[in-house]
């Protein structure tokens, strides 16, 4: 199984004043393609930092980060943007939809940025995603005209539509009520199961943690437990190395 993301002994050290903060402290973490993992842990434990690292929004101070087999530890700002553009889908806690665009256009936006497809090509990609997420009937509505849960579905659609290597979501349900939150997580699980989409998300919500197939616990920048560790341990070392360089 190929690795979507691989962190090799990664540390991220912030220095506010003189006392340094090790937001990540020697984290080694593998996420396979088609996997779905949740990162949990107390506030300040490094969840967001880990997601930023894998999402190519940040670079490690120590160790290496591989995305889709490519070492991104020393890429430039511009190169990282390009990798995000091609390979990563983001779902944000506060959705970040563009209020002046319709649901359809918000989803299409991810493809516009890529600039690869024609008008028709984009439409052929966007509509099936909207249908799969049950929001096709909202295509011409503005974000202000739909509910929070529906807005988060639009955000998921925007992440999905470019068929990324993985989708990152930093507390995607924090702004939703628990019922809607659960339905959003169930939707992500369904996409993971049916489409094989790779998800990595962080959460505080125990109910959401229960739903995740794999749960990683962070504390003080270290992984303290990982329900998927067993599976990773079972992998022979040679294969891992091969995957990384592939």
């Amino acid at each position, binding site marked *: 199984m190929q690795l979507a993301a691989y962190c090799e002994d990664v540390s991220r050290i912030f220095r506010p004043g003189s006392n340094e903060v090790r937001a990540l402290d020697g984290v080694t973490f593998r996420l396979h393609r088609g996997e779905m993992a949740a990162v949990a842990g107390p506030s300040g434990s490094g969840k967001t930092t880990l997601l930023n690292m894998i999402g190519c929004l940040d670079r490690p101070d120590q160790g290496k980060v591989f995305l889709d087999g490519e070492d991104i530890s020393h890429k430039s700002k*511009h190169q990282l*943007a390009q990798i*995000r553009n091609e390979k990563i889908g*983001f779902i944000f*806690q506060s959705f970040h939809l563009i209020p*002046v665009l319709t649901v359809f256009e918000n989803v299409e936006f991810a493809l516009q940025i890529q600039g690869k497809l024609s008008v028709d090509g984009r439409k052929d990609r966007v509509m099936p995603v909207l249908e799969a997420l049950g929001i096709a009937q909202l295509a011409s509505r503005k974000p202000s005209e739909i509910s929070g849960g529906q807005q988060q579905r639009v955000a998921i659609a925007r992440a999905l539509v470019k068929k990324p290597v993985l989708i990152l979501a930093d507390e995607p349900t924090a702004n939703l009520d628990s019922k809607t939150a659960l339905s959003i997580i169930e939707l992500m699980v369904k996409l993971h199961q049916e489409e094989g989409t790779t998800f990595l998300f962080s959460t505080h919500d125990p109910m959401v943690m229960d739903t995740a197939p794999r749960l990683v616990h962070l504390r003080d920048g270290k992984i303290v437990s990982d329900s998927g560790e067993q599976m990773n341990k079972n992998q022979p070392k040679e294969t891992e190395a091969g995957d990384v360089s592939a």
Partner: protein
Amino acid sequence: MFLLKLATLNIFRNTKRSILTMTTVFVGVFGFIMASGMVNGVEQTYVRIEIDTETAHLRVMHKRYLSEEENFPLDLILPQQRAVHSVIKKGWPTALVVPRIIFSAQLGDGEQALGARGVAIDSALAEKAFSLSRYSSSKKPLPETGKWIFVGSIIAKSFKKKIGDTLTIESRTRDGSMNADDYQIAGVISTGNMIIDGGSFYIPLKSARDLLRMPTGLTDVVVKLPKKQDALLVSTRLQKQFGAVQAQTWQDKTRTIFELNKIRRQMFNVLISIILIVAAAGMANTVLMSAFERKGEIGMMMALGMPEGRIVRLFTAEAGMLGLIGSVFGALCGGSWAYYLQVYGWDISAMVEKTYGATGQTTGLSVASFIFFDISFSTILMGIFLGVFVSLLASLWPAWRTTRFDPREVLARS
């Protein structure tokens, strides 16, 4: 293309702010077009009325005449009048040489009297050079002989006289005694030149010779050439050939206007620059504010991997769009108003009357009662370009500022 569409939608997000920003650009472009229309118009108006009603292209007189002009001397007559005439005709056979006697007079009707400038003129030639009948209420030329008078419209109004009424002209004769005679009004003329309309009258040259007891001699001749550009050439030739002659070209007479306009232009440039600086500051502020309001959105775009250049372009496009709309409206309003004033003129006679009095000055530069604006398509385009350019320029820094946003911060807690 999609950036432009998004930029267009974005300017409606804060309509009030957008309109305010556009308004400053509007004012700048509007002001620029009106100011250029006026300043160019003033030049052309003054050149036109000077040529069409007063000096033609050239005025030839005694060398010392100009320095004593305000006394209207009748003894400083144009020397070698015939020779001057033939030199002009030899070089420019189709030129019109119009003989005149300029004198000062009192116009009266028994109740009131008014000082005015008399222009005794060869009416046939004056008709050809100035088509005086065009300005006259009678639409007929001034008769060549007889005691007929064409009187300026403002003078006629203050006497409450019309065609057919009589006015008495009282004047000092060549030998210094006083003489007076009754003249019948043959036409009330409004030329748009306040010196004429408010302070001059025309009588036939032949009748003036009796009134002024001046059987020969002219105070000056005015010359209409086939090409106005030749005025300087004629003037230098005459002055070289006749030591006692001075020739004043239309350029000489309107020089003060060009100099005044240079100052006006500078003044307007400063004014327009100030307006445009205000507009630019408003634009920069608008772009900066909307960038900070949309921090989350920009962070999202950055996270999605949108190249920084395109985010910068999105914001400059918004500024450009605001600038373009403001400029186009400014150009439309300024252009059409300036065009209206180009066709119908801007009535400044009340202003002029306040400054000079109803009778105007009696010597020197002509004074227009109407300013006809001069507006060209290129001025309008220039105005639009200026508005858009300033808008784009002003937006560069705040738009670039967005690239310093950190998507991590923006997305983490909002």
